[in-house]
């Protein structure tokens, strides 16, 4: 048995919530555009070698008698590989995410490889994976060794959180974060969740920007916020777009944005395991009065990042996650739901930086572009995710059927485009 990380335990709780709410497994797709055409034999060979190398690719997760979750490796069965007929990527992704076969609670493969020819000299590789087992940096590392001929078994996992010690000490460390969370209900937190509506299947839309548009986006960021404040800038862009939709629903309300921002625990990706989750969620609140111009709000959020660090809240959050790791998954999110009246946060957001940095070829083909498509839970019902590859920015909008009307989706994308590219 391989102990789950404290971050895995959080993701397991989120998946448990999604399953109980009929939202299926918490999966993500990673999309890699490649030159040439797919070679089925090479894909099958790579899949067999991956399964032989990594026992966690055929593991299930379960809690033990001590309530701690752990991964239980099973037989190294082949990973599914499918070559699809030429067609649109969006339709394939929708089908894969809507009818998932991966189930982390049962023995069986935790990774699928799908190949889709998209042009005469272009194809797309789609990896389908469960979020409880990987995060985006882990998938980048997996891509880097996808066609590695090595078949020897590796143990590329392990906890990276330093939180530990007796519960009393953990509680003292965690207490500032608990007090911070108790301050959140000062404002009525809203997400795109519709309280009397059962969220449906995962939905997504990709905003793929050209290199010229991406250069414009960078220039605007530099002029509005500064060239190095990427994280608060894109979080602000995501928050403003979500707030525009919420303001349409609640025109008379003051709308704050409670952001849940994943931060990698290990600065150097080469010094962390491939498998398991290694993120700490930073919860940052933008109050209604914090929303001004794009630049003003970015600088306010930057100050809030700094305050979060100065008050040692990342360490407090680590301690809280350690304290919570034995909590049964169905109860894990209850305290947040109680304080926030059924919500978790306003939206999920991340900017994972350069996609698969350093991986220039796969199976002998040039990597042309790439991005991730994570599914999200409801609440909050919406995720806005960014990444870059080859000087092209991709924004993945991920929501659940029923959380956004077509008009709201148009407002969301229009607001994002206007902030990123400037008014038309």
């Amino acid at each position, binding site marked *: 048995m391989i102990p789950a990380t404290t971050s895995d335990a959080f993701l397991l709780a989120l998946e448990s919530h999604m399953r109980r709410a009929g939202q299926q497994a918490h999966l993500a797709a990673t999309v890699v555009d490649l030159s040439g055409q797919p070679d089925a034999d090479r894909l099958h060979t790579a899949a067999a070698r991956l399964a032989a190398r990594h026992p966690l690719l055929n593991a299930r997760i379960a809690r033990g008698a001590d309530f701690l979750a752990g991964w239980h490796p099973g037989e190294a069965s082949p990973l599914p590989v499918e070559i699809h007929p030429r067609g649109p990527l969006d339709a394939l992704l929708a089908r894969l995410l809507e009818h998932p076969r991966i189930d982390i609670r049962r023995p069986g493969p935790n990774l699928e490889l799908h190949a889709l020819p998209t042009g005469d000299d272009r194809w797309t590789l789609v990896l389908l994976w469960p979020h409880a087992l990987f995060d985006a940096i882990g998938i980048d590392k997996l891509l880097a060794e996808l066609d590695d001929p090595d078949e020897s078994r590796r143990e590329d996992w392990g906890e990276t959180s330093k939180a530990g010690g007796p519960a009393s000490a953990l509680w003292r460390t965690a207490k500032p974060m608990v007090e911070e969370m108790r301050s959140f209900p000062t404002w009525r937190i809203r997400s795109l969740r519709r309280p009397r509506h059962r969220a449906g299947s995962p939905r997504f839309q990709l905003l793929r920007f050209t290199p010229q548009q991406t250069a414009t986006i960078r220039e605007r960021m530099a002029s509005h916020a500064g060239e190095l*404040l990427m994280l608060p800038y894109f979080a602000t862009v995501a928050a403003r777009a979500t707030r525009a939709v919420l303001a349409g629903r609640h025109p008379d309300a003051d709308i704050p944005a409670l952001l849940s921002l994943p931060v*990698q625990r290990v600065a150097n990706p080469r010094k962390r395991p491939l498998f398991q989750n290694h993120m700490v969620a930073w919860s940052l609140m933008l109050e209604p009065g914090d929303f001004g111009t794009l630049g003003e709000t970015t600088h306010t959020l930057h100050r809030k990042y*700094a305050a979060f660090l100065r008050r040692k809240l990342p360490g407090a959050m680590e301690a809280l996650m350690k304290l919570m790791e034995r909590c049964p998954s169905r109860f894990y999110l209850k305290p947040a739901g109680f304080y926030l009246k059924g919500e978790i946060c306003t939206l999920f957001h991340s900017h994972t930086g350069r996609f698969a940095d350093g991986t220039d070829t796969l199976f002998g083909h040039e990597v042309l572009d790439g991005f991730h498509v994570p599914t999200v839970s409801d609440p909050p019902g919406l995720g806005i995710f960014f990444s870059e590859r080859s000087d092209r920015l991709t924004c993945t909008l991920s929501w659940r059927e029923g959380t956004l009307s077509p008009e709201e989706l148009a407002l969301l994308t229009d607001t994002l485009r206007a902030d990123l590219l400037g008014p038309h």
Partner: protein
Amino acid sequence: MEDDILRILRDDILDPDGPITADTDLFDIGLDSMAIMQLQLALEDAFSVAIDPADLSRENFRTASMIAALVRSKQAP
């Protein structure tokens, strides 16, 4: 000052694979947006200076030498 900045970068911010010098390009070894924000606070604490968001530029943060020059300019009376 450069040595102190290199120690902060090495031990608290970047955890690089190999040695870094005062002239190493920090963006090439992983100085990203999160690391910049952490570094800003570490510099303010270590050298008792205030670094304005407007100072967070590639020109000021490309190497430890450039960061040292920025910090000195903030310490100047």
